[in-house]
C-alpha cells in the first residue's frame, strides 16, 4: 500500500519522457522535411545519355524523382525503373511536373552512352546521369546514398554494386520533400508522389 504511489510515479515520468522524445523526434522530422537544413540533395554536375553536361539547376521548376542504381543490375534496378515509369503514367497530367532521374553508382562501366541506352528501355522521359567517380561520390554523399563495389573472386570484371534502393522526391526549388519506397508498384508510388504535389 505504502510503496504503490512510488512505483507508479516513475512510470508516469517514464511515460512523459517517452512522449517528450516522440514530440522532439516529430518536430525534428518536420524541421528536416520542411527545409530547416539542406540535409538531403544538393548541387551536382553530371553528364546525360547524350554526353551533355547537366546540373541540378537545369531541373529547377520541376519536381525530381531521383533513383540511384547501375545498369549491370538485372533484377532490382530494372524493376524499380519500370515501376517509376508506371507511376508517371498513373500520375496522368501531373506527371509533366515530375522529372525522373537515374543516377548511376557505377561510373566506371556506365558511360553516358550506356546510361542513355539503358534508360530508354523504360521511359522516354527518364534521364540517365553519370560522371567521374568523384562527381558520383559527391552526389551520392549529398543524397545520403550508400554504395560499395562487391567483387566476385572468380570474375572481378563482373562486380556488382551494393546500393541504397530508395527514391527521392525533390521540390521544384531543389529541396528534399520525401523518400518514396522503391519496392512498391507504380500505382502505389504514384499515390505517394501525388500526395506531395501541389
Amino acid at each position, binding site marked *: 500500500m505504502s510503496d504503490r504511489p512510488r512505483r507508479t510515479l516513475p512510470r508516469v515520468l517514464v511515460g512523459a519522457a517517452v512522449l517528450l522524445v516522440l514530440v522532439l523526434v516529430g518536430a525534428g522530422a518536420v524541421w528536416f522535411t520542411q527545409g530547416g537544413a539542406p540535409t538531403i540533395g544538393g548541387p551536382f554536375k553530371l553528364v546525360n545519355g547524350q554526353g551533355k553536361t547537366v546540373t541540378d539547376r537545369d531541373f529547377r521548376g520541376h519536381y525530381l524523382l531521383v533513383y540511384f542504381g547501375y*545498369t549491370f543490375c538485372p533484377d532490382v534496378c*530494372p524493376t524499380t525503373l*519500370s515501376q517509376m515509369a508506371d507511376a508517371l503514367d498513373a500520375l496522368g497530367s501531373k506527371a509533366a511536373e515530375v522529372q525522373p532521374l537515374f543516377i548511376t553508382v557505377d561510373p566506371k562501366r556506365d558511360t553516358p552512352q550506356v546510361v542513355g541506352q539503358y534508360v530508354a528501355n523504360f521511359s522516354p522521359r527518364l534521364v540517365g546521369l553519370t560522371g567521374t567517380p568523384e562527381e558520383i561520390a559527391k552526389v551520392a554523399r549529398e543524397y545520403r546514398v550508400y554504395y560499395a563495389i562487391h567483387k566476385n573472386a572468380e570474375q572481378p570484371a563482373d562486380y556488382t554494386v551494393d546500393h541504397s*534502393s*530508395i527514391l527521392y522526391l525533390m521540390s521544384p526549388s531543389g529541396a528534399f520533400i520525401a523518400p518514396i519506397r522503391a519496392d512498391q508498384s507504380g500505382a502505389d508510388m504514384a499515390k505517394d508522389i501525388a500526395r506531395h504535389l501541389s
Partner: protein
Amino acid sequence: MRRLLLLSLLAMPLLVPSGPTRAESGPIQVQQVWSRAAPQGRVGVLYMTVTDSGAPDQLVAVSTPVAEKAELHESVAEGGVMKMRPVAAAPVETGKPLVLKPGGYHVMLMGLRRTLKEGDEFPVTIRFAHAGPISVTAHVAKAGAAAAPAEMGRGNGTMSH
C-alpha cells in the same frame, strides 16, 4: 494441340496441390519461365517457378544459348541497401516451390548474344542436383516487368523430361 493438352494435364497437380495425379515424367516441374527485354551485349534475367513432388532437390545451374553466362543469384535487402550475390544452389521440396522472382532469387544472364524483345521466346536448360536436366522455353516480357507476361498461360513453358 494434343501436345498442349498433354502439357496442361501435366500441370494439373500443380494447380490442385492435393490432386491425385502426378506427372509421370518426374517429380520436378518448371513453370512460368520468363525474362525481360534487354539489348544485346548487356545483362538480362530469368525468373521461374519450380515445384517438386518427390524428394528434396536443388536447382544448381541454368544455361541458355542467348547468353554467354547464366548465374543463379539472389537479391537481398539489408537496411535499405540492395545486394546481389551469386548462390551455388537453391532448394526445392514438396510443398515449398522455389520461386525465382524480382527482388529475390533470379538467374542473371551476362553477355546477351542477341537483343531480347518483348514477346520473344528462347530455350533454357535447368539442372538439378538429383533430377535430370529440364528444357523449357522462356517468354520475354517488357524491360523491368514485375511479373510474367500476361498471355503466358499456366503450364505454358512446362516441359518435363
